């Protein structure tokens, strides 16, 4: 099922310099991220477009590419500002203009510390602007944001294909609750307990939770919630 791969953050790094790509790749790997590197903004868009299931005519366009594109999900884009052709700023704009991609956080990197450039990028929707050389400490700042995006897209996936369960009615109720919700912000709860579900049967919950966790070896870590009826937070 590829659950191990799914739990890793996947970052798309864009830089025209091989040297810089090597550096950012190592930094990201050291931060426990899965990394894909490309050498231009247009290749980045291709890669992101493939994520939607569009065929690519040129398999050589990508420097590193997973075998099954549909499975790939990008949790963060980190791009150099100064690149020939499409700049990092252009790429940022394109991502934010795309309904499919706009929720992916974008980080801009530049070797130059130009305040006007920095504010322009932030205004255009960049999550962060890093002045090179980028360090591990800089990437650590991004973790909470990547986790949020990952959780959000996982929940979106699950809503689109609700799982059948012995407690089928419970799942249905929860799903429609989310669909009707006007809240766009998904909160990360410290515990795997949804007040709604707790109300519906605390006793049943606690024993089932425990059994499921032990049987399936599900981590109680909040990074990987799963809709199997009653063990997850909304």
């Amino acid at each position: 099922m590829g659950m191990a791969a799914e739990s890793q953050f996947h970052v798309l790094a864009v830089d025209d310099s091989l040297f810089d790509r090597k550096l950012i790749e190592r930094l990201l790997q050291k931060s426990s991220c899965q990394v894909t590197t490309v050498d231009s903004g247009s290749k980045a868009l291709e890669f992101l477009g493939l994520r939607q299931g569009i065929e690519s005519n040129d398999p050589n366009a990508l420097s590193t590419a997973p075998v099954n594109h549909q499975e790939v999900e990008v949790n963060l884009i980190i791009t150099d500002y100064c690149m020939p052709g499409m700049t990092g700023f252009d790429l940022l704009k394109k991502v934010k203009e795309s309904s499919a991609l706009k929720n992916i956080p974008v980080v801009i990197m530049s070797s130059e510390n130009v305040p006007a450039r920095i504010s322009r990028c932030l205004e255009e929707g960049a999550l962060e602007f890093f002045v090179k050389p980028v360090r591990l400490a800089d990437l650590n700042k991004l973790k909470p944001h990547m986790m949020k995006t990952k959780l959000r897209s996982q929940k979106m996936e699950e809503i689109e294909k609700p799982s059948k369960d012995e407690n089928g009615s419970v799942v249905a109720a929860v799903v429609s609750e989310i669909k009707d919700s006007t809240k766009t912000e998904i909160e990360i709860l410290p515990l795997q307990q949804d007040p709604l579900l707790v109300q519906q049967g605390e006793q049943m919950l606690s024993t089932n939770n425990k059994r499921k966790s032990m049987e399936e070896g599900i981590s109680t870590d909040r990074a990987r919630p799963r809709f199997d009826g009653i063990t997850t937070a909304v």
Partner: protein
Amino acid sequence: MNTIVAQLQRQFQDYIVSLYQQGYLDNQFSELRKLQDEGTPDFVAEVVSLFFDDCAKLISNMSRSLPDNVDFKQVDSGVHQLKGSSSSIGARRVKNVCIAFKECCDVQNREGCLQQVDYEYKMLKTKLQDLFNLEQQILQAGGKIPQVDIN
């Protein structure tokens, strides 16, 4: 056998500290070394090698453009790139001569600046080669590369 390893380690430590003290390297080089681990034992050597390749290429391009006094863009972009990568490697002296290069106005000065960049990168290349050789000797003698903390 232990004393040989200890001696080599001491040599390595002294050498790397001297490189920092003499301004060849700065803190960014330590950051790079932190990124290397058992899974990626050649990381620093690889990026350093990439850096020196870039240096050679860019300097060669720039020295061709400079005398004709025509393509400033090429030269400016070359210096910019070198400044960026030397900064990312922690090659402090190379970075500083690149910064000086950026300030240069007339062609004569720029040729002098370019020569300085060439000199500094070659100097650093030799020094780092010596450092890597020491590392290899330590590993071959069965020892570990010491973690050196530079302030």
